[in-house]
């Protein structure tokens, strides 16, 4: 909410001409989300300081908002008080000509590098304070970062002081682009024109910025297509193998070098083929990777995906082109919203069911209900269960001892625990269990993922 711009270029009061604001007056600009006020706490020939204070209307911010996702649905939030994309928008409105590098009275100054000092506070930073340095220093700034104390330990806000000899327009464009990048958020929905905004403000300096990818990815809120478009225009010679449009889950990152999920899909698909199944239920289908893999094979005549998450099902529908206008729909596939602790007639009668990395997301005391639903009520001839092998966890360098691979995991089993569970299921419901592993097996700690194929 606070940004201060000062210069020691003489006469420093020329800053008023550059910003098109008289240093002895108060300038108020009404914005859609509140009000910006510019005034000059100091206006001497040796030093002149302009301050922009953003007075965001906290009530207006949340009024009339529906159930859209995002930070602003939190009725109490830090947006009115921090340097965020709101401040970028305000800078662009209030200092439009300065940002464009034009000045009616002092065009020569506008084109000139001036000794500038900028203070932004509180600036929210996702990541370490070093990121502020890493982003601004390559642009010619000397950076001081002071972490603001929180209730218990340091907060996520810093007070940033930037000093350097730069054109004012460049300085403002740096702020405009990098404040939301540090914050890693935007208050508005970004569309395709966001790439144009980025190139207009940062095109000149972003191309050679060492943190270019990070800036682009965060600025475009990780929207894969936009990120690729921006990179292609900034650095057409480089092939960008960026992340997909979504934020990778913690588990993916941890297991990423193994591409473990793909291996699981292949292993389960192979086991289903071996079992001779033709009607398959993917219980906990997520975004439908297994279904998409199975759909390539005509031997599967009925494919059902069940998931507790409506969002996951929507993405699965997208991936499988179900319900997309103009797409040829695969009539074999159906997606169901459901959970595995309720008996469910809709997916009864399949030959096989797959539970890929599902059971560990249920509290242990709910597992008997899952077993009753899957093995007692539905009773497919083949059930494939995969789950992390806790023995293997010691081999993950970034995983603390005793921690789980994903925050939603309720347990992770050793191979012995998995075999004990499968054995109980087998004897209780009349199945046979065969155990194997997925991924590179360590001689002592075994494979990262364990798989049980239960047949009856």
């Amino acid at each position: 909410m606070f940004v201060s711009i000062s210069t020691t270029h003489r006469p420093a009061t020329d800053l008023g001409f550059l910003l098109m604001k008289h240093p002895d007056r108060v300038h108020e600009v009404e914005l859609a989300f509140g009000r910006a006020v510019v005034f000059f706490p100091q206006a001497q020939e040796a030093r002149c300081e302009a301050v922009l204070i953003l007075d965001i209307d906290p009530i207006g911010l949340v009024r009339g908002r529906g159930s859209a996702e995002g930070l602003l649905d939190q009725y109490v939030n830090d947006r009115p008080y921090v340097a965020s994309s709101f401040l970028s928008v305000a800078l662009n409105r209030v200092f439009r000509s300065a940002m464009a590098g034009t000045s009616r009275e002092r065009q020569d100054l506008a084109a000139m590098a001036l000794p500038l000092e900028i203070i932004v506070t509180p600036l929210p930073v996702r990541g370490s304070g070093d990121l502020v340095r890493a982003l601004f220093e390559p642009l010619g700034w000397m950076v001081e970062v002071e972490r603001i104390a929180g209730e218990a330990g340091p907060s996520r806000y810093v007070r940033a002081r930037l000093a350097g000899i730069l054109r004012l327009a460049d300085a403002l464009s740096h702020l405009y682009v990098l404040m939301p990048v540090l914050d890693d958020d935007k208050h508005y929905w970004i569309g395709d024109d966001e790439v144009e905004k980025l190139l207009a403000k940062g095109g000149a300096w972003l191309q050679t910025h060492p943190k270019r990818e990070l800036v682009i990815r965060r600025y475009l809120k990780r929207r894969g297509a936009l990120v690729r478009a921006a990179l292609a225009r900034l650095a057409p010679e480089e092939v960008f193998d960026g992340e997909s449009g979504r934020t990778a889950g913690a588990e993916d990152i941890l297991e990423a070098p193994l591409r473990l999920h793909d291996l699981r899909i292949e292993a389960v698909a192979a086991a289903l083929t071996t079992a001779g199944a033709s009607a398959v239920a993917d219980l906990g289908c997520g975004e439908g990777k297994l279904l998409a893999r199975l759909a390539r094979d005509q031997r599967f005549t009925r494919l059902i995906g069940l998931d507790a998450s409506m969002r996951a099902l929507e993405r699965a529908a997208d991936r499988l082109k179900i319900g997309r206008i103009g797409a040829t729909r695969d009539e074999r596939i159906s997606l169901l919203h459901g959970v595995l602790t309720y008996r469910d007639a809709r997916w009864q009668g399949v030959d096989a069911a797959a539970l890929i990395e599902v059971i560990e997301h249920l509290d242990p005391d709910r597992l008997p209900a899952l077993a009753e639903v899957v093995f007692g009520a539905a009773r497919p001839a083949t059930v494939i269960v995969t789950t992390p092998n806790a023995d293997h966890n010691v081999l993950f360098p970034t995983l603390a001892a005793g921690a789980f691979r994903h925050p939603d995991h309720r347990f992770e089993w050793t191979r012995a625990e998995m075999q004990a569970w499968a054995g109980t299921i087998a004897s209780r419901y009349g199945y046979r269990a065969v155990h194997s592993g997925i991924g590179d097996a360590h001689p002592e700690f075994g494979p990262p993922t364990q798989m049980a194929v239960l047949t009856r």
Partner: protein
Amino acid sequence: MSFEDAVVLDIPDFSLVVLIGATGAGKSTFAARWFRPTEIISSDQCRALVCDDETDQSATADAFELARAIAEIRLKNRRLVVLDATNVRAADRKPWIEIARRWHALPVAVVIDPGADACIANNKGRQNRDFGPSVPRRMTQEIRQGLARLPREGFRQVWRLSSVEGMAAARVERRPLWTDRRDDPGPFDIIGDVHGCADELEALLRRLGYGLRQDGTTIEIVPPERRKLVFVGDLVDRGPRTPDVLRIVMAAVDAGQAHVVQGNHDQKLSRWLAGRDVKIAHGLRESIDQLAAETADFRDRVKTFLDGLRSHYWLAGGRLAVAHAGLKEEMIGRGSPAVREFALYGETTGEVDDFGLPVRLDWANAYRGKTTIVYGHTPVAEVQWVNNTACIDTGCVFGGKLTALRWPEGEVVDVPAARAHAASARKLASPAPERDAQAAADTLLDHADVSGRRWIDTTLFRRVVVAEENAAAALEAMGRFAIAPQWLVYLPPTMSPVETSTRESWLERPEEAFAFYRGRGQAEVVLQEKHMGSRAVIALCRDAIAARRRFGTTSDDAGAIWTRTGRAFFSERATTDAVLARIRGAVDAAALWDELGTDWLLIDAEIMPWSAKASSLIEQQYAPVGVAAQSGLEAALDAATRAVSRGVTVENLRDRLALRREKARRYAAAWRPYAWPVSSVDDLKVAPFHFLASEGAAHFDKSHLWHMEIADRLIAVDGGILTATRRRQVALGDEQACAEAAIWWEELTAGGGEGMVVKPLSFTPRGSKGLIQPALKVRGSEYLRIIYGPEYDLPENLIRLRERGLGGKRSLALREFALGQEGLTRFVARAPLRRVHECVFGVLALESEPIDPRL
């Protein structure tokens, strides 16, 4: 069966009436005279409906499909159906017999045969009926040829009207089915399988208050006022005094004091008495020998009596059905060979078990009906309710006991067997000692019982509707995060804030709450301190055995604590156990178990500190806002102050920034009283305020004073986890008391308190228009800062925040309250888990309705 022309056609009021007659015979005229238009399905009309031409024979197949569909739906809904078609050949009639059987309706044939000449004459007067004389002649002939075989085709009644005069004179009268005794309201004493145990029967009848006077072979029974006996069948065989049992029961029936349904033993004896070839086994020998000593006249009467017994009775306005071996929902009050078979033997797989007895399918586990079904046939050690059904055969003849179920009281009265009169082939199916039959039947919930748009009837309020999208949201929450449904029998309702205050600089004040209840006829309210912690529902059992028995759990847990969204309150089981142990200690010391006659309690409470449950919310949302607001405003204020000092006219801005900074400071301080570090159970505080339920009772009928008094007693003996809820009682007519109460609230909130809850004394308060808000919260001005933001009470903000609508929140509060109460009432009454769960699920689903979360 007589094929003579009938004057009065006595047909069952639920049946499939197939009219049989040549074209022009007068079927439609007859039907229109005696049946409602909606009861008649005419093939001509169906043809017209599908192709606009009632004579177009090419549409016959489609018209038949339509007629069949209407007939099936009407029969499913237990509505009489009259089929108006020629139905000349057996092949035409066969599908209707099958449909009648499928829906357990009696097929009735009404043959309308005024002679071919009358048909020809009738057709002459009608358009599109120029068949010539040959068609009616052929039809009439075919009908007459098939007449004798109609009963064998499956018609349970055949009526014939063979002249124009006979048709004019005939009258149709409807009779309820023999099994339909909904007109008999009871109350009833329903007696289990007697099997010739007359000593025990006499003792049981006396215990039930029946007088028995015997004069030679004449028996007179004097029932308690208005009560009636119902026998579930198997009066005979195995036991020592079958003729005496029959004498008592027949006397009661003759006197109109008893209903008796037929048991498989009764049926077999009846067949033997009728001279049929019956294998003499399973105790039939005893009956035969004992009856041999009786007079031939008595044996004849027994034969007639047993032969005339019904498959089941449907009683008391449809709320009760009694059948020997049970009944499926779709069979109640209907008749078919399948109904009789099921009522006699239950559902069997066709296989036999290790004892050579048929393997039974547990129809009761699948039963979903609203009608209570009481049955016998399969001996059990104790009467067990499963899904609104009860088996009351407690194996008297095998040395168990003879049981009566008083209905509608539900009270079980039994007398022990004098001795084992027969050896059982199978051990008495004893209920699992630790888990009751209902719990065992409730292992699984069904997706179909919670998904989609749902309607839940509540006794307290009205029908509550759960929208499909809300049910879907709840399914995800329930499936991924909630504790086991066996524990999760209740979720607390949301609570509305008080009307917005009109006083300057206030959003909520006590005066509006007082006015609200005063205006709704409440004389007195209780004010309770609103603790700033996290809501918790605590299921506290005396031990794990009680937990397994009452909640049907399978673990060693002796209780559970969950949040208002059904999640485990503590992530560590050990913490839950430690908290439960402390509360249990207080309940032990207060001797509450015995006083309430229970070994479990359901407690509604607040657990402090707030930070114990909300630490991530504080760390990630509330605390950062305070830090950001203070530091940003500080920098801005400093700049404005410097600007003022050099003469720029930003005084107003400076003052405003100073005010805002002060509010930010107060915001950051507002939640501090609610946060303290928790390193062990010693740091936790539990404030109980509702004792929702205990064995046999949901305590919604008690006033809040009762609930608070129990809380006081527990706190008095507590070893250091329970904390009191400050409170006072206020007479709303006393202005002085109201003013003092407002001051009490101001002091409470000025000292860092969240606020208070205002409740009428009654837990379920009613005004002139029905249920009213059971409670209103009045939150303190500093607490509201946490909710609405640091600067909510700036005049320009407050004026907009005042425009809050409370209607949605109030409606939600009432619906959730009614659902919660309904669920607990069902739980206490030992309803099936799905019936309890649907209410809990409903509360969670309603919580996903878009309502301003700041309210």
